């Protein structure tokens, strides 16, 4: 006769989950033993409906005791242990029978797929757990929190052999849509394990769990120390070693000790050279350290690795979208936008819910410069079949100040049904940016004084008239807005709007705080987006010299972004006077000078940037491009001056062939 299988469980208040679990094993096991530790809902009844033998066991702060109570009552030859929020995968039912029939091992590590809910999507995270073993009276759980049975079996039966059965799969839904552990529970667990560990300081596994709990409690230094202790002298065959190593890396990283973290990555890769998570975190840490060479190597390796074995418990996406995202960032740092785009697109294809990649793609397509091209690309790339997707895209476009495209998308959504007020206001802003003031005002008027967005709506109304140079209306509206009781900063910005239209000469004396500056910069950006350079400058002219000097870098960068090189240069030079050590400002000035064809000044600024911050690849690249551009100019000049000498034309063409574009590109 075939071996009999008992399913053992402990439950409390699991009416939500239990039936899914028991349905999944119906017919796959021969007996169901459920130990209830004090449910107050319908758990017991549901269990009975599925033919389970339900026993009560008073909770005594020990998971092991409760589990063992269920084992006591099992009569089968094999024990399968499940939690109520787990289920047996459909395809695994036959596997279960086959494994117990073969009976070549004393127990099996089986694959568990943890579903994690985070960042707006569900990600599967596989791992190995020990859940299937022979039913013998001395095989009992041990440990109050992280109850274990593997080492107990080995102690009792030194002949025992385990096997890994990755085709037996348990699905775990428990981490979905709720916090993994509430705070007080975390602390309670920590204290329980600490006590247990004090009684058994040699217990490596327990120390590992203790380190993990410390990590979860955000006590990273201690976590790293305990985890290192757990790892010292460990048998490399230990099934949880990969996870242990990753936790050490995470703990060191969180404790801001990147050097140690990278050293563990190195050691870990010596043992598990195909462990994607170590490459991923190695890459992440190197990236943060600005060690781009190493970061690149790590991420490249991560994306080239095969499917990870279950006991690595590899995080979702480390071989895919997560690493591709950073490869994209690296490509951008090396000014290779094409490659960056490729990486982000690959990442997005790997995980269509990964908004960070989408955001980067939209940014790189420069939708405010070339909306038509950007629209075409995005249409090919994204499937915008649901209103949610369209709205998300609109949001991304809006954030990237691509107002025309954002408006197109918003119009698709706002045409149908109830639309949140915030989205309507975005639409109004987009309309303002198209100079469709009347339509914008129509939306804005709908916001009554009681609405939380009223001040913002009002501000946009002021902008409508300000952009049309309507001094009278602006003044009146500003007074209305003041009457609402604005913060000092916001009031000052609104005052700037009003006063910039005044014909009287003003003393530049407005000093803004952080909030005011960010509001002002937002307005300046929108004004520049409309091509109103002089209006933008008049607005800034009201700032006190000190306040302008402090913020001139951000101002200059905005002017640069919208192609106003001269004004950008003025602001950036002003900033450099205050902060001569700012490499980024030197770089932008170099770019401006390079575009203007002023070789020497450009070279000076590039060299300054490079000297101030030799870690930034773009400083090298800028200089290289400058030399190449100047060389092209020399060659062109030579072609003109010496038309009979063919070599110059040849050299020019050669350079273009090398760079893969035609001479017409200039």
């Amino acid at each position, binding site marked *: 006769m075939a071996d009999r299988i008992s399913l053992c469980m402990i439950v409390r208040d699991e009416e939500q989950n239990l039936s899914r679990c028991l349905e999944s094993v119906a017919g796959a096991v021969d007996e169901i033993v459920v130990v209830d530790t004090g449910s107050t809902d319908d758990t017991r009844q549901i269990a009975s409906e599925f033919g389970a033998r339900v026993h009560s066991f008073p909770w005594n702060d020990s998971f092991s005791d409760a589990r063992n109570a269920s084992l006591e009552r099992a009569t089968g030859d094999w024990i399968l242990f499940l939690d109520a929020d787990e289920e047996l995968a459909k395809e695994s039912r036959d596997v279960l029978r086959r494994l117990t029939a073969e009976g070549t091992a004393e127990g099996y590590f089986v694959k568990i797929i943890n579903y994690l809910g985070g960042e707006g999507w569900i990600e599967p995270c596989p791992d190995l757990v020990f859940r299937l073993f022979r039913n013998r009276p001395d095989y009992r759980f041990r440990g109050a929190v992280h109850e274990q049975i593997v080492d107990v079996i080995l102690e009792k039966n030194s002949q025992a052999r385990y096997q890994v059965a990755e085709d037996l799969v348990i699905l775990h839904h428990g981490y979905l849509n709720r916090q993994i552990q509430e705070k007080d529970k975390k602390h309670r667990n920590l204290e329980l394990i600490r006590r247990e560990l004090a009684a058994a300081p040699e217990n490596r596994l327990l120390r590992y769990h203790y380190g993990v709990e410390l990590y979860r409690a955000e006590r990273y230094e201690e976590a790293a120390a305990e985890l290192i202790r757990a790892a010292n002298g460990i048998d490399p065959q230990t099934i949880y070693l990969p996870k242990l190593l990753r936790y050490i890396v995470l703990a060191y990283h969180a404790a801001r000790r990147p050097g140690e973290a990278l050293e563990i990555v190195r050691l870990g890769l010596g043992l598990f050279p195909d462990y994607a998570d170590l490459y991923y975190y190695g890459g992440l840490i190197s990236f943060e350290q600005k060690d*781009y*060479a*190493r*970061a*690149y*190597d790590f991420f*490249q390796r991560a994306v080239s690795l095969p499917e990870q074995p279950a006991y690595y418990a590899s995080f979702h996406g480390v071989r895919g979208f997560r690493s591709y995202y950073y490869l994209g960032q*690296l*490509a951008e740092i*090396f*000014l*290779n936008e094409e*490659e960056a785009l490729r990486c982000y697109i690959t990442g997005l294809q790997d995980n269509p819910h990964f908004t960070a990649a989408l955001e980067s793609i939209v940014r790189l397509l420069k939708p405010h410069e070339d909306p038509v091209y950007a629209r075409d690309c995005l249409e090919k790339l994204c499937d915008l079949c649901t209103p949610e997707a369209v709205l998300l895209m609109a949001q991304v476009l809006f954030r990237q100040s691509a107002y025309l495209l954002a408006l197109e998308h918003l119009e698709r959504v706002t045409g149908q049904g109830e639309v949140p007020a915030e989205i309507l206001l975005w639409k109004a802003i987009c309309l303002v940016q198209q100079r469709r003031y009347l339509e914008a005002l129509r939306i804005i008027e709908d916001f009554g004084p009681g609405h939380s967005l009223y001040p913002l709506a009002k501000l946009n109304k002021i902008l409508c008239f300000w952009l049309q140079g309507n001094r009278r209306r602006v003044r009146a509206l500003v007074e209305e807005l003041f009457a609402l009781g604005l913060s000092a900063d916001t009031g000052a910005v609104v005052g700037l709007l009003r006063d910039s239209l005044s014909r009287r000469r003003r003393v530049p004396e407005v000093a803004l705080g952080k909030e005011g500056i960010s509001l002002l910069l937002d307005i300046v950006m929108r004004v520049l987006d409309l091509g109103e350079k002089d209006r933008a400058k008049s607005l800034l002219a009201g700032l006190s010299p000190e306040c302008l000097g402090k913020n001139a870098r951000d101002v200059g960068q905005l002017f640069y972004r919208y192609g106003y090189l001269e004004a950008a240069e003025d602001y950036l030079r002003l900033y450099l006077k205050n902060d*001569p050590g700012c490499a980024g400002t030197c770089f932008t000035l170099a770019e401006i000078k390079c575009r203007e064809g002023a070789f*020497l*000044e450009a*070279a*000076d*600024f590039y*060299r*300054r940037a490079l*000297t*101030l*911050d*030799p*870690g930034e*690849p773009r400083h*090298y*690249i800028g*200089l*290289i491009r400058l*030399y*190449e551009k*100047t*060389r092209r100019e*020399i*060659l062109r*000049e*030579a072609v003109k*001056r*010496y038309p009979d*000498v063919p*070599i*110059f034309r040849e*050299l020019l063409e050669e350079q273009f062939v090398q760079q893969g574009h035609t001479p017409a590109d200039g």
Partner: protein
Amino acid sequence: MRPTIGLAMIVRNEEGNLAACLESVQGAVDEIVIVDTGSADRTVEIAGRYTDKVYHYPWDNDFSAARNYAIAQTRSDWVLSLDADEELDTTSGDLRALVNNNSGYEAYFLPLCNRTPQFPGDYSRFLVLRLFRNSAAYRFHGRIHEQVAVSRPEAVGIAEGPVIWHQALSGKERNRKRGRNLALLRRAAATDPGNPFLQYYLGVEWLGFGKAERALPCLQSACTRLTDAQILFRAPAVRFLVICLKTLGRLDEAICVCLEESLRYPAYTDLFFEGGVLFEQKGEYEIAIRWFKEAINCGPPPAVFSHTNGTEGFLSLYHLGYCCEKLGRLKEARGFYEQALASEPGYVYPLYNLFLLCLAEKGPHGAFDHLAAAGHLAQPERAGVLADLFFEAGYPDLACACIEKEVLAAGFPDDGVARRLVRFRVYAGRSEDALCLMDGLRRTGGEIDLDLDVTEVVALILKENYRGAKVKALSLWRRPDGRGAAWALLNLISLCKSGSRCGRPEESREAAVIQATLAIMEDCLRYPPWSPGVDGRAYGRLVENAAGFLVRLSPRGCTALAAYLQAKAGAVRRMMDYKYNQAGRLWR
């Protein structure tokens, strides 16, 4: 009575070396016997100043016969045999102590160190039998690479000193001697093909000639046939075999030899070093690191093994740094370079790597602070190297600081340093300081070379002292090697002053003019725009005029300028490749 020691040597045309050799043995020997085999120079005269025992012996293509003739003229109890290009270092040991003791030894191996021409700290050590009792039992054998025959090995001792220093030959002279040796050796080997010593020497000479493929069979045969009793020969034979295979690109075979022989001689440091070098060449840096570490663990090998100084220390440390660098373990690499520099102050190569590492990692100012804090600027030689490196990297301000911080603070620098400092200062925006220093040089009668003259004119142009510049530039014209530069400078002066050129150089001189112009432009492009008080406009004007001059000069000028810009881009790109490795490929 204490035993006496006589120096016996054979010489021919050694007027350049002989005096130094004979000076070195003053007081160490009681008698000097010199046998001349046909000098055409002042060798005999020089010999006569040190001894009246100068004899003539007609050369008959047999080194042993000549040497034995010299020994026959020696009356002392012991014989010391030296060549004219060798010197005895009496500070490293005492011949008297060797011959006076009662050990029963009748002969001694003395350490012979070969200086390499490039670097004084880098030398190889062999043991040679050069001190022996003056008896019929000790006579030379072999027409070439003659050896003293040893009848009773137990009667031969190994002395740690005194060391014999063998001078490096100039390349030409070395090849002449090699040619002569090879001819003799081949004749000898033909009559005595089974002699492993001859095979060994043949291999060494072929290798020295750059004919590794011919050396290989000789060295292989020598290694097979020499026994451990002949370790003095077998050890260098093995090393030369490894070097030979390496030269032929047969790295795996060379590694096999290293592996096999290091098992046989586990204390032989140099084998581990060579093994490390081989793995390094194969790009197997992790393994190479293990070999170099083993070489360091070994320490200096026992005296019987021929040994290159430093394989147990600074050479291995240098390579360790390089391997770590390749593996991206930069901090470790830095540590090894520092250690190498500390253990052999005269070996400056690691400083180049250290500089690049620091520059890539910390940027110019960070690198300067680091190197200064590590004490490198306190040593004039290193400070000079670092100053050059900073200047080349485009930081003349830091180049000045390298010299000014410690070397200059300790007093007026020597002429060579002062000359460089003038140039660094001019392009760091400190023409005034530079001209002062230049005056100082003139007053002390220091040599003013062409480069310095050019630099001075540039300094005057930068100060808009065109009249002074023109006078100096015209005086350059009088130097035969200065005409290209003079042309370039006169044009630049004229362009800066009035925007017009002055004449066109003859076509034969055009290349020199272009080169001089580019050199000035290159230096002007180094000036530090970030230094307070430096006005970049004067440099900018000079660069613009130089570029314009080249473009208008001729197609050749254009080509040169374009090539120059390409090279500049290439240099930055190389720096990027160095710093970012594979990631640099992201930008192509």
